[in-house]
C-alpha cells in the first residue's frame, strides 16, 4: 500500500502531470496527421524524455503512446486516411458515418469513448495480471530467460516481417549489434574498430530514431510526391455520445477491449490486428450486421476499443518478462532501461512504486485522452490539414536535434542518418526494422543468460532441453518460425 501511495505522489507531481498531458496532446497530434506514426512520435520525443529525468519522461512517453493510437482515428474518420495502421478498420464505418450520414461529431465522439474505454479496460487487466505473472516468472532462471528472449524474438520476426527469413536475418543483425562493446561476462572488448565511441556498445537510441523517424520521413517524402493533400473543412457539432449510442455499443466495447487486451499480450501482433479482429467479431455478433460499412456505431466503436486496448495488454510482457511486443513497446522498454528501470519480474520488487506509477500513468493518460478528445477535437481536426511541405522538414530537423541532444555527439547523428537510410531501403525489401531493434534490445539479455546457463551446467548445452519451461519456449519459438513457411508452401 505504501508503494501505491508513493506512486500516486509521483504521478500527482504537477510537472509530471504536465508532462503526461503534453505527451497525450503530442501523441494525438502525431496520430491524427497521416504519415506520422506512433513509433515516430515516440522515437522523436525519446531524447526529450531523457532530458526530463525519471518518471516525468516515462509519463510523457506513455501519454504519446496512448494518444497516438487514438489520434489515428481522427483522420481515419474524416479523411478516410488512417493516421496509424491500427485505425484502418475505423475507416470502414467511421468515414461513412462522418460523410454519408453527415455525423462527424457522432463518429469522433464514439471513437473517443471507445478508445478511452479500451485503454482503461486493458490497464485494469494489466494491473490485475502483471503482478501475478511477475510472481510466476520469478521462478525463471537463466535458461528460461534465454529461451524467453529467443521466443520473443522469433514470434516478432515471424509475425511482423513480410518474409520470415528476412525477419530472422534482421533479428540476428540486431543481436550482433548488441555484442559490440565490452563483454559483460568476460570483459573483452569486441568489434569496436578501436574507437572509444563504440566501447560502451552501440547506442540504440540513434538507431531507433533513424529507423522509426528518419526512414518513415523519407517514405512520406516518396508517398506525397505529386499527390495533392486533401484539406478537410468540417463543422463538428456535439462530440459527446448519446445514452442511446452508449447502450448500443456497450457490449461491443467490452468484447472488443477484451480482444484487444489479449492480442496486445502476444508479442509481434499489435493494434492493426486487434482492430480488425474486434471489428469482425462485432459484425458477427451484432443485431445490425447488415448495416456494417454504412456508418454503424458498433463498427466505429469496435476497432477503436480494440486498438487502444492493445496499449495495456502490450505492457504485460514488457513489464513482467522484459519482452517488447512491437516497435512502440520496444521504444518504451528502451526508455525504461535508460531511466534505470530494467523490465522483468524483479522490477516489481526493486522498483514497485515506479511500476505502480506506470499503471496510474496509463490510466490517467486514457482519461486525459478522452477529455482532450471531447474538448479539443476541433483543434486536432485542423492539424490534419498541416501541409507535408511544413511537417516533413520539421520532423527531419527534430530527428537531428533529438539524436544530438541525447548524447551531445555528432557520431550519434551519423549513426542515426545511416540507420535511417538503411531502414528506408530495407523496408522496401520487406525487412522488419522492429526485429532489428528488438534484437538489439534483447541481445544483452539473450547472450548473458545463454552464457550464464552454460556456466550453470558446466558447459553442457543439454540444460536448454532438460528444463520443461525452457524447452516449451524453445519449441514454441521453432514452431513460430517454421509455421509461416509451411503455411506459405501449402498456399
Amino acid at each position, binding site marked *: 500500500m505504501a508503494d501505491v501511495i508513493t506512486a500516486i505522489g509521483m504521478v500527482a507531481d504537477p510537472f509530471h502531470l504536465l508532462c503526461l498531458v503534453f505527451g497525450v496532446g503530442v501523441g494525438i497530434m502525431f496520430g491524427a496527421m497521416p504519415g506520422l506514426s506512433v513509433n515516430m512520435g515516440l522515437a522523436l520525443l525519446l531524447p526529450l524524455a531523457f532530458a526530463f529525468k525519471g518518471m516525468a519522461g516515462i509519463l510523457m512517453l506513455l501519454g504519446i503512446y496512448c494518444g497516438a493510437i487514438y489520434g489515428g482515428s481522427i483522420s481515419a474518420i474524416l479523411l478516410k486516411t488512417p493516421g496509424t495502421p491500427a485505425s484502418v478498420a475505423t475507416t470502414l464505418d467511421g468515414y461513412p458515418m462522418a460523410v454519408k450520414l453527415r455525423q462527424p461529431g457522432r463518429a469522433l465522439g464514439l471513437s473517443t469513448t471507445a478508445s478511452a474505454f479500451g485503454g482503461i479496460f486493458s490497464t485494469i487487466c494489466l494491473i490485475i495480471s502483471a503482478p501475478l505473472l511477475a510472481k510466476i516468472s520469478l521462478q525463471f532462471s537463466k535458461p528460461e530467460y534465454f529461451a524467453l528472449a529467443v521466443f520473443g524474438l522469433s514470434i516478432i520476426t515471424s509475425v511482423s516481417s513480410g518474409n520470415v527469413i528476412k525477419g530472422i536475418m534482421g533479428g540476428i543483425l540486431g543481436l550482433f549489434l548488441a555484442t559490440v562493446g565490452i563483454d559483460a561476462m568476460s570483459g573483452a572488448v569486441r568489434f569496436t574498430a578501436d574507437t572509444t565511441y563504440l566501447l560502451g556498445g552501440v547506442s540504440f537510441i540513434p538507431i531507433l530514431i533513424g529507423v522509426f523517424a528518419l526512414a518513415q520521413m523519407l517514405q512520406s517524402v516518396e508517398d506525397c510526391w505529386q499527390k495533392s493533400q486533401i484539406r478537410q473543412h468540417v463543422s463538428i457539432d456535439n462530440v459527446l455520445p448519446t445514452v442511446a449510442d452508449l447502450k448500443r455499443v456497450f457490449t461491443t466495447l467490452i468484447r472488443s477491449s477484451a480482444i484487444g487486451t489479449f492480442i496486445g499480450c502476444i508479442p509481434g501482433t499489435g493494434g492493426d490486428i486487434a482492430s480488425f479482429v474486434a471489428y469482425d467479431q462485432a459484425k458477427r455478433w451484432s443485431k445490425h450486421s447488415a448495416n456494417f460499412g454504412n456508418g454503424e456505431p458498433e463498427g466505429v466503436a469496435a476497432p477503436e476499443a480494440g486498438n487502444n486496448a492493445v496499449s495495456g495488454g502490450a505492457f504485460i510482457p514488457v513489464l513482467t518478462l522484459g519482452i517488447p511486443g512491437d516497435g512502440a513497446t520496444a521504444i518504451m522498454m528502451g526508455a525504461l532501461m535508460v531511466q534505470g528501470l530494467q523490465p522483468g519480474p524483479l522490477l516489481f520488487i526493486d522498483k514497485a512504486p515506479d511500476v505502480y506509477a506506470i499503471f496510474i500513468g496509463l490510466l490517467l493518460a486514457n482519461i486525459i485522452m478522452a477529455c482532450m478528445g471531447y474538448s479539443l477535437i476541433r483543434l486536432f481536426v485542423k492539424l490534419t490539414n498541416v501541409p507535408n511541405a511544413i511537417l*516533413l*522538414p520539421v520532423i527531419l530537423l527534430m530527428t537531428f536535434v533529438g539524436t544530438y*541532444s541525447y548524447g551531445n555527439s555528432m557520431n550519434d547523428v551519423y549513426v542515426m542518418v545511416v540507420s535511417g537510410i538503411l531502414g528506408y531501403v530495407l523496408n522496401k525489401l*520487406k525487412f522488419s526494422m522492429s526485429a532489428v531493434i528488438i534484437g538489439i534490445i534483447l541481445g544483452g539479455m539473450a547472450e548473458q543468460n*545463454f552464457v550464464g546457463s552454460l556456466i550453470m551446467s558446466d558447459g553442457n548445452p543439454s540444460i536448454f532441453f532438460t528444463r520443461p519451461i525452457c524447452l516449451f519456449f524453445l519449441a514454441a519459438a521453432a514452431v513460430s518460425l517454421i509455421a509461416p513457411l509451411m503455411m506459405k508452401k501449402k498456399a
Partner: protein
Amino acid sequence: MSLIREGSAFLQWMKKSRGGMTDAATASYYPGSYRMVSMRSCNFIVTLIGLLLGSAIMSAAARFPLEITEQGPGAGFWPFLLGAALVVAAVSLALYTMVHRAALTEEKVALGTAANWQAYVMIGLILLFCAMIHLIGFYPAAALLIPCVMYRLECRDKKRMLLTAAGVVLFIYLVFGQLLHTSLPSSVFLE
C-alpha cells in the same frame, strides 16, 4: 552497342525523373524495366550481403576464445554463433528464392521511380546538411535546409518558406538551446 544505347536511355531517364517528371511520363519515356527491380534479384543481393556479413562476423569473432569450458563459453562464441546463423539464414533465403522463383520474379520493388528519386534527393540533402553542420554550425545549416526541403516538396511560397525556417529554428533555439541547455554544434571555424 545495345548496352550503350540502354545505358544512355537509362541516364536520360534518370535526368528526367530527377527534374520532376511524373511517374506516368517516366513510364512512357522509358518502358518500366529500370524502374522496378524484381524481389528475386533483391533477394539474391540480400543473400550475398548476408553471406559476406555473416562470414565477416565469424572471422572477427574467431579472434576471441571460442571454446566452451567450465567457466562458460569464450567471448567469441556467441557472436560466432550469430555469424553462422546469419550465413544459414542467407543460404535459406537463396533456397527460398529459388523455390518461389516465379512469384518473386513477378513481385516488383520500386527503387527507381520518380517518387523514389524524391527520397534519394532528400537523402542527398540530409548528407549535405551533415557536412554543413560541421562547416557553418547547426542553426545556419538548419535555416538553409528547411527552405530547400520545402522547395523539393513543391512549396513555392517564399514567405511561407522563410517564416517556417525562422519559426522552427527559433523554436529549437528556445526549447533545446535555452530550456534544455543543449549546445548544438557550432561551426568548425568558430571552435
